[in-house]
């Protein structure tokens, strides 16, 4: 974040106050955000905003939907149409938004607990339908907003407030889950992989179909502290030392163990008709000339339709 504030010397050139290039995309009247120091969420949000700017989609068409939790607050900071919904229900809300206005580029930006636990059913069905949207799943291995409880992605052995002796549940391998359900773009990075994440998010935003990007992100305040993993910086060092880029990896092999290696990269990229493609094609065939394609949203005040 550059904050170069210069005072012009008398008679010298007038230098305008320098602004962060993301300011136009942030609700600056809501900054500072609520996230902890060295939490990875700010990095992921920055990457998303850069990807919006680089994507081929017009700004007005970008829409963000979040659920509940630390990551769920992301929608509140981005200066595009943004919806902060109920716990786990960001995906079905986003589905309705997309179907009612298919022009929108809907991104669901939420956490592992929101998307994979309480929202797990919606995740597998959105992937199965190849619903045309992007999902950014920030995985910090725990429920952080509520103070650090274990969740469906917590590695076995990690300690959290509701797993004081270490979690003994088998965690989800999320890329394998969504891949097996029909997602047509699946990638994973850590919050250390800024350049790669941006490139991946641009690809995901430009992808037709259900694109899913998991980002492993440090939770210094609860997950790391309770497990004596050090600071956010120590976790980035761990990502640096343990991440292994393997594009096209078989998603069955990318599960994450406690303090283990993290396979990252673009795992899946395939073409398949989206929900709207199959719906229109099938109804066009079956209903014939009586078929009336969805007429689009109602005419709004400024005449856009």
């Amino acid at each position, binding site marked *: 974040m550059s904050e170069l504030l210069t005072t012009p010397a008398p008679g010298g050139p007038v230098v305008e106050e320098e602004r962060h290039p993301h300011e136009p995309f942030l609700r600056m009247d*809501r900054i500072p955000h609520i996230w902890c120091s060295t939490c990875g969420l700010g990095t992921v949000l920055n990457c998303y905003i850069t990807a919006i700017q680089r994507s081929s989609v017009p*700004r007005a068409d970008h829409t963000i939907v979040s659920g509940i939790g630390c990551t769920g607050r992301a929608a509140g900071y981005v200066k595009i149409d*943004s919806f902060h919904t109920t716990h786990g229900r960001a995906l079905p809300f986003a589905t*309705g938004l997309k*179907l009612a206005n298919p022009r929108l580029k809907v991104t669901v930006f939420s956490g592992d607990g929101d998307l994979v636990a309480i929202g797990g059913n919606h995740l597998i069905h959105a992937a199965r339908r190849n619903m045309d949207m992007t999902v950014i799943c920030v995985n910090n291995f725990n429920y952080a907003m509520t103070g650090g409880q274990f969740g469906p992605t917590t590695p076995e052995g990690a300690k959290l407030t509701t797993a004081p002796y270490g979690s003994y549940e088998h965690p989800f391998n999320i890329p394998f889950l969504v891949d097996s359900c029909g997602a047509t773009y699946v990638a994973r990075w850590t919050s250390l992989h800024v350049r790669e994440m941006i490139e991946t998010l641009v690809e995901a935003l430009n992808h037709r179909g259900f694109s899913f990007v998991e980002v492993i992100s440090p939770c210094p305040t609860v997950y790391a502290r309770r497990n004596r993993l050090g600071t956010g910086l120590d976790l980035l060092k761990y990502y640096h030392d343990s991440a292994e880029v393997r594009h096209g990896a078989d998603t069955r092999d990318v599960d994450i163990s406690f303090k283990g290696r993290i396979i990252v990269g673009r795992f899946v990229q395939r073409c398949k008709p989206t929900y709207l493609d199959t719906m229109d094609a099938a109804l066009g065939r079956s209903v014939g000339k009586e*078929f009336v394609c969805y007429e689009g*949203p109602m005419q*709004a005040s400024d005449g856009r339709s």
Partner: protein
Amino acid sequence: MSRPKPSQPDATVLTGAHYLDGDEACAEGAIAAGCRFFAGYPITPSTEIAERIASRFPLVGGTFIQMEDELASMAAILGGAWGGAKAMTVTSGPGFSLMMENIGLGIMTETPCVVVNVQRGGPSTGLPTLTGQQDMMQARWGSHGDYEVIALSPSSPQECFDLTITAFGLSERYRLPVLFMMDECVGHMTEKVVIPPAEDIPVIERRWYRGPKESYLPYQAGPDKVPDMVRAGDDYRIHITGLTHDERGYPVINAACQSVCVSRLVDKIRDNAGDIVITDEEAVDGADVVVVSYGISYRVATRAIALARAEGIKVGSVRLVTVWPFPEARIAELSRKVKALVMPEINLGQMYRELQRAAAGNCRTLLIPHCGGWVHDPNDVLAAIREGAK
């Protein structure tokens, strides 16, 4: 269902006389009201509405999606409404329970949509194929927090058509999920339904914001306490949240903002109750007893009222077309004029509590309860009328 003839110029409004059940009529009412997004999950006895929509939407330019559950269905129609469509879901008791969380989100974010509950007997899985009126208090209080709702209760297939249009109009006018409380009998009852010409159907459009883009505040309301709306994709850069929020839509977590936010959600309905409440009254002037009923129980009550009149009892009828808000001022007024208010309902006393509260001891209030599974015997209602007339 009867598909419209290919030669028909406009398949949207099936003008004419039909023989439809309540579920089918409700679907046609939604289409006539301009509903073009539907998300639902199959559940008896509401499924025929979803089936009719799935069959009809491809002919009228609507999008139908069958979601993975009722949580998803309710969330999807909220998204659909913000995407710019008139949206609806349908369900029955067990699904209604699952929808409660996102009905709350719809209340908090002031999202227009219609939620149909074709009621069956409960609790739990209860009586999937048999009638009940047991979700009336759930409609009022089922989601957590303080709020007001609008709920309607049709008594015939014709009303399933007419009042679905009214429900959409109220949802757009007051910006909230409107609950359409049918029951299995009305849903599966087949009667003549007359669909008027499209130009005679009172369709209320969304309250689109028409001011300058720079000064738009998503939750700045006018004198009627209802804010104007925009849709996603028009570059207003709105933020919409289920958290307590200010006029900008930004979360503000304190008691002062909560007071402003929640008071307006409640007051926009309470202050406008005179415009919202619909009752259908008959022969109440000079009556000794007034039967207060709604839904299928009204149909039974009309038989009991006829039998009572044959015995010389002066009995009138108040039908609750809107069950919420409850017409408490009118009931209070009547309670000072009659000997008794009698209420048959297919539960063990839900709207009856409101009746008692509004009557405030001014007259006798008699409940004719029923556990569900079938409608009342008119003789049971007649016995209560006789008792009230004493």
